[in-house]
């Protein structure tokens, strides 16, 4: 026994922990085009500090998994906890890391760290001109026991990475869209509504870009989540529903009238805008079958009709557990779909051709979710 233990001590000594190096996996033959590749941000389960960044290289067909630590070895505890959004603007890549209270700013081509923007409980990021706009749940605190905390949109100078202004909006603002000289913010009220549905927010905040003040609210539905502007400046907004009787749903705000004029019975978890096609994935829990019901829909933003409720044509949809992110190649129309699986172990990335036939798949990090395309350097 003692001998056995001594052997264990001698041969199983604890070494210094090595930093994680990326895996390179060849999944496809390379092709050149307007786009060099895309980043995929894995959220990582809360508390795991396992938000990771993957890169798919269109030119070589190589999937590089978990590249952040290798590129940026000196950042303590790596990328951080729970990635929530990923966007490219100019030469920079912006990763919103929710629990780490920061927006990580990287060089878009190399993923080398440039700096970070400190914003507590940050959610989503969009850009206009010299500025980035970031939603956050964590508004200022008042000394008032009944005070409930509004969220805000932070205005960030993309050159200095400093927050230069804040504009209060509704409770727990999520996605934002910039169009028509305005910032449209989908307010969720996600912290408020667990007891009764009426406590959720149901409005879109409209902020004037010039004055950076909230102009008005547009009433939509409870618990708003995503918002996008189409080519015509009309807005598409999704509601998460109340997770009980009220289902998730898609709404249309007319650019001119600035009110909801249409709604489409499609639940929304994640989406991607591809020209006038809105690729929508959704997962909704059914208390009847005790399982998740999943739809893969395409909505035409011009005709405002559902083109299909299943854009996958080869039956692969039967195997996907939790579609958590979708992206469509702007040129080729290939569909990239991220399966978050059980949230605590790695997910999968699927590539389908434009007709919905599976081409390849690769293991990702935990909870693959957010895509950002990178253009080829001229």
């Amino acid at each position: 026994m003692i001998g056995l233990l001594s052997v264990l001590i001698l041969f199983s000594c604890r070494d210094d922990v090595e930093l994680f190096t990326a895996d390179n996996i060849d999944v496809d033959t390379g092709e050149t085009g307007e786009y060099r590749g895309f980043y995929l941000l894995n959220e990582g389960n809360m508390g795991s500090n396992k938000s990771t960044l993957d890169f798919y290289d269109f030119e070589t067909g190589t999937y590089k998994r978990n590249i952040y630590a290798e590129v940026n070895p000196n950042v303590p505890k790596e990328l951080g906890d729970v990635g929530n959004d990923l966007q490219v603007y100019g030469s920079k890549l912006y990763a919103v890391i929710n629990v780490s209270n920061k927006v990580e700013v990287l060089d878009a081509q190399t993923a080398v760290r440039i700096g970070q923007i400190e914003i507590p409980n940050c959610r989503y990021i969009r850009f206009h001109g010299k500025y980035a706009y970031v939603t956050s749940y964590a508004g200022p605190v008042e000394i008032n026991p009944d005070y409930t905390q509004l969220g805000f949109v932070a205005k960030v100078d993309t050159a200095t990475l400093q927050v230069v202004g804040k504009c209060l909006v509704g409770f727990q603002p999520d996605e934002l869209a910039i169009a028509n000289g305005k910032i449209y913010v989908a307010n969720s009220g996600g912290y408020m509504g667990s007891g009764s549905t009426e406590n959720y927010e149901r409005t879109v905040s409209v902020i004037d870009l010039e004055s950076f003040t909230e102009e008005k609210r547009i009433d939509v539905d409870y618990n708003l989540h995503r918002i996008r502007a189409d080519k015509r400046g009309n807005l598409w907004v999704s509601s998460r529903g109340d997770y009980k009787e009220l289902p998730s749903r898609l709404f249309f705000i007319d650019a001119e009238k600035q009110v909801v004029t249409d709604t489409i019975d499609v639940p929304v978890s994640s989406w991607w805008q591809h020209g006038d096609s809105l690729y929508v994935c959704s997962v909704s829990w059914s208390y009847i079958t005790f399982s998740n019901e999943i739809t893969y829909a395409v909505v035409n933003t011009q005709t405002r009709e559902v083109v299909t409720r299943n854009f996958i044509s080869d039956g692969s949809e039967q195997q996907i557990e939790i579609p958590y992110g979708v992206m469509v190649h702007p040129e080729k129309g290939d569909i990239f779909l991220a399966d978050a699986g059980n949230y605590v172990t790695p997910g999968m990335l699927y590539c389908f051709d434009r007709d919905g036939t599976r081409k390849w798949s690769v293991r990702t990090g935990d909870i693959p979710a957010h895509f950002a395309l990178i253009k080829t350097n001229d």
Partner: protein
Amino acid sequence: MLLYLFLPFCLIAQSKLDSVQHIDEVRITAAKTSAKAIIPAQQLEGAQLKALNSFSVADAIRYFAGVQLKDYGGVGGLKTVDIRSMGTNHMGVFYDGIQLGNAQNGQIDLGKFSLDNIESISLYNGQKSDIFQPARDYGSSGSVYLRFRRPHFSQQEKQHLKATFRTGSFDLVNPSFLYERKLSETVSASVNTEYIYSSGKYKFRYKRVLPGSNEVAYDTTAIRKNGDIYAFRAEAGLYGRINEGNWELKAYFYDSERGIPGAIVNNRWMNAQRQWDTNFFVQGGARKVLTDKYDVMLKFKFASDRMRYLNPDTTLMYIDNTFRQGEAYVSLAQKYAITGFWDVSLSTDFQLNLLESDLDDMVYPTRNSTLIALATAIDLGKIKAQASILATLINEKITSGKNTANQAGSAPNKEEFTPAVFFSYAPFAAQNLSFRAFYKHIFRMPTFNDLYYTDIGNIQLQPEFTHQYNLGLKYSKSYEQQTLAHWELQLDGYYNEVRNKIVAVPKGSGMYRWMMMNLGKVEIRGLDVSSKAVFHLPRNVLFHVKGTYTYQKAQDFTRRKNPELEKITWGGQIPYIPWHSGSLIVSGSYQNWQLNYSFIYVGERYHNSANIRENYEQPWYTNDMSLLKNFSLKESNLKVALEVSNLLSQDYEVVLNYPMPKRNYKITLTFEL
């Protein structure tokens, strides 16, 4: 119904199995547990227990084979125990003979139980193989029995007093006080109080090197914050003897406030969440030999627990929830000796659990459990065998809670019948060699959180079942007049299955929403080895050595919808279970001195069942030392103990992102009168 169950059956004649045990009731109970169980417990007691640098029961329990501790770090950090990889909810923890309950989440934080005044800790796989016990004792996959000091007085003694003061790293202040009094020839009393304060501050370090070159990538040292704890415990007990029996009555009060230090993640090195616990219970029991063949034992408990969780961090969702739990429990165990070698027993327990909270949309559940255990034991000298069957009848009701508009109703009634068989065989009368085997089928009920917690709860949940198969042996040998005075070895191989494992499954869209489901399946193949030896060296130097080794292959065979994802987790070692682990305790004593060394080794493991590079965790091990000196004064006794823990100052984590303390110190002064 209930009355009928409590009806004694038959009251006649002589029981040889018990005849020895009536003489000195005070000692019997202690002797009884180990003597009567046909598969002996792993046990830590007395001096051995004191030799460990253990602050809480959780620290001590790591020295048992087959046990893995999940430790979130620090004095106040959550510490839960997993027995043979079946999950913490399958472990029953018994406080002076009555199970500690937590119907809300099924977790007993063993970090909350200090070792102050603990007489022994015993671990049983399957169950304590003794048929004269409450039905609830049959109801777990494994059990830990904590036995506390009882007053023992010699003829002249009237009272005992013990005062302890402990201080050291983490700004620890920990006084405790024990007073025992002989009230009459048959009744004695004890009072025990303890106070704990610790700032919970300690340095921790994250260092990563570049692969290949071993160049430092980053190396950061910080201080763990919000790990502070204040706790106050008070206990009082009355212990009495009656003709052919004994009784006891205990009251327990625990009050604490602690910070929840949380996970250390990038750019966030501190958390603000806090938790308050108040636990109160009264429990008692009596046992009596009614006739020479017929014994009865009555036990009861009333418990009231309050837990408040607060998230005051204004950048996050504000949470301030209070949960109240109540429990009432009564048990009657009866044993009847059919012949001198054949006993039967019937135990009937009734238990009520309720939970109230101010959590939005959570109902108030009430659970009525009736447990009936029928058991029999045969002792043929060389061969001993026991068989039991436990019937568990569960009935649940709900009433409206705060803002519960969407009641889904209460969980359906459950009826489960679960057997256990124990067997031991000692082939040679002259040799201390015995073989043993057991099979047990049992389950854990879904907790109130599993069933009813807002949004994630699922009333359709079935119990989570385990099947255990165990084969083992024990050999011991003593020598007269030799350096090696005694040694023993216990070896057990086992196969366990956890079916219907309750796991959280992602539900619906976004925002980390989950649903509890009976989806998981785990298969565990393991080997537990424990051994000890006593050496008598010249000049009255005494050495005790105790070692354990555990091998566990605990594989996740949970079906997935996505076959490609299933491939990643299928057959993977389940989270935080090392293939190899072990412990070693060496203590030497010379006159009034005692020097102890203890070692824990936890081998490589993965933090989730995808056994890939990203999830790999290196082995960790800690070396602890302590030095004790006894000063005997006239009528009193003073003990001084110096302890160093994590001697090599290893930076390690038991749970991902919960760093453990580096080297730390304690000093303990104990005064006894």
